[in-house]
């Protein structure tokens, strides 16, 4: 089975986010970047499928050369190959643009695949658009936010989270699947894997070489501002014995905050 996994380099979830109002952007200096945590589940699932059923795992990333580090991590985890689709645009918050790049790259250069795996969303932009959009552009079925995946021959079944429950999506390959936490427990890279990944020459495909028009590469969002959420005003500490504090809290929620 030929499995492609699509990954993204994102700021660490423990980062404090600073914004720059003048440039309408998030300040990247000082942030530490990681492989998008949801993508780790996707990579792990690909490796497990390969181990069980054979095949190859290739990992793709759209981004600048700084993204090579997350591709190396995927190689160290066990992926067979990695490809950087080099794009200098930075964060556009536009899922369609990324999906167009991926779809075009696959059609033009890597048309042989059975399964396309994604994380359910890129941490930070939090869009969760690219898996469904890529599926649509390539005419593939999709299963998003998946916590269980079964592939047998050319048939797949995925369990995905919905409000207050789950649903099973049955599909045929090739297909798009996006991973949610709970799908698996990602492995750590081995030292041997890390050393080997360092030596790999990762092919770089400039986004300009894919044959997309300027209009297709233009971001579809016109950013008008980046702001921080309003500060919450200082709260009130309820002192007193537990019973007393509980009573005061219940009363405050009803008569002061009016939320119960």
């Amino acid at each position: 089975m030929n499995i492609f996994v699509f990954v993204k380099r994102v700021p660490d979830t423990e980062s404090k986010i600073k914004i720059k109002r003048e440039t309408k952007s998030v300040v990247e200096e000082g942030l530490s970047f990681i492989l998008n945590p949801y993508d780790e589940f996707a990579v792990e699932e690909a490796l497990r499928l390969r181990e069980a059923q054979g095949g190859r795992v290739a990992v793709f990333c759209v981004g600048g050369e700084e993204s090579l580090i997350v591709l190396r991590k995927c190689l160290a985890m066990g992926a067979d190959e990695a490809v950087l689709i080099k794009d200098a645009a930075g964060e556009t918050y536009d899922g369609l643009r990324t999906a167009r790049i991926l779809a075009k790259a696959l059609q033009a250069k890597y048309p042989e695949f059975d399964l396309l795996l994604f994380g359910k969303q890129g941490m930070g932009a939090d869009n969760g658009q690219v898996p469904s959009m890529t599926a649509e552009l390539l005419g593939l079925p999709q299963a998003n936010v998946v916590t269980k995946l079964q592939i047998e021959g050319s048939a797949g079944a995925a369990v995905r989270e919905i409000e207050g429950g789950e649903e099973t999506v049955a599909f045929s390959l090739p297909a798009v699947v996006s991973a949610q936490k709970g799908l698996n427990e990602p492995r750590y890279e081995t030292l041997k894997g890390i050393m080997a990944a360092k030596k790999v020459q990762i092919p770089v495909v400039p986004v300009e070489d894919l044959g997309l028009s300027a209009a297709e590469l233009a971001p579809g969002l016109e950013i008008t501002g980046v702001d921080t959420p309003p500060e919450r005003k200082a709260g009130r500490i309820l002192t007193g014995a537990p019973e007393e504090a509980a009573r005061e809290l219940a009363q405050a929620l009803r008569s002061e905050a009016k939320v119960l």
Partner: protein
Amino acid sequence: MILVYIEAREGKIKKASLEALSEARRRADELNLEIGGALLGSGLEAAAAEVFARGAHKAFLLEGEALDAYSAQAEAAALEELVKDARPEAVFFSATARGKDLAPRLAARLGVSLASDCTRLEVKDGRIEYTRPIFAGKALLSFRLKSAPQIASLRPNVFPLLDTGRKDGEVVKRAAAVRPDQVRGRVTEVRSGKGGALDVTEAEVIFSGGRGMKGPENFALLEELSGAVPRSAVGASRSAVDSGWIDHHHQVGQTGKTVSPNVYFAFGISGAIQHLAGMSSSKVIVAVNKDPEAPIFKAADYGIVGDLFQVIPPLKEELKKLLEE
């Protein structure tokens, strides 16, 4: 027209869809546009009345064999057909599990960008400005969409419901052209969680537990609290989930779910940045923690410094009393 995708389960419309419809109507009034509701599947005639009550002028009922079980592929195709005929200026979804699955598929099919999971819509100079949280709420991004039709999904539990008092409007029935053999993926089974428990993203009150809960067995205390309060759910911090105390679908925070209930109770949660990101848009936050220095108190509207095991039992009684009044 602003077209709103209406999600129904077993003939009943989801509240989140009605919220999206209500917000669409408010913005449409500013833009002088009509509202249409799109209901896909069969047996939804009765549901149409509610669509009118929440602001729609028209209800489109799209039927067809391919739409009987949910399929993103089939629904995107059926919606594309409707969009080509009705030519709406915008299409809104609620950012539910379904909306998040379907909206990007339709957007890509139409070749337009998507504003996902928006928490504020404003009309400026005749155009809609969308605002959505990024970094799970650590920052807010505002933007306009350059392409038409505009497609957006609206976060549940954020936009207030509207009641127009109307019960009727124009019902337009359409047979969708998409055929089952054109679809390679569909839902074959739906299972609800235990006792039809509400998801944290839908709950109006959330009782969340962290490390301070000390073990999986103590989450029963939060279940009991939740049992005493209607439309409530149990949440958890990442460390509680990673310790295996509770299933990950309860997790609130940057690697879990982003929630905005009326009240968020944090029991024994220290308040790591990634957790705060996921719940700081709650209307009221209550923190109960032994450590007076816990960062959660900085985010809380009400705090109790103390042993959560001593606070929960009397709190349960007080809440019960209050809700019986």
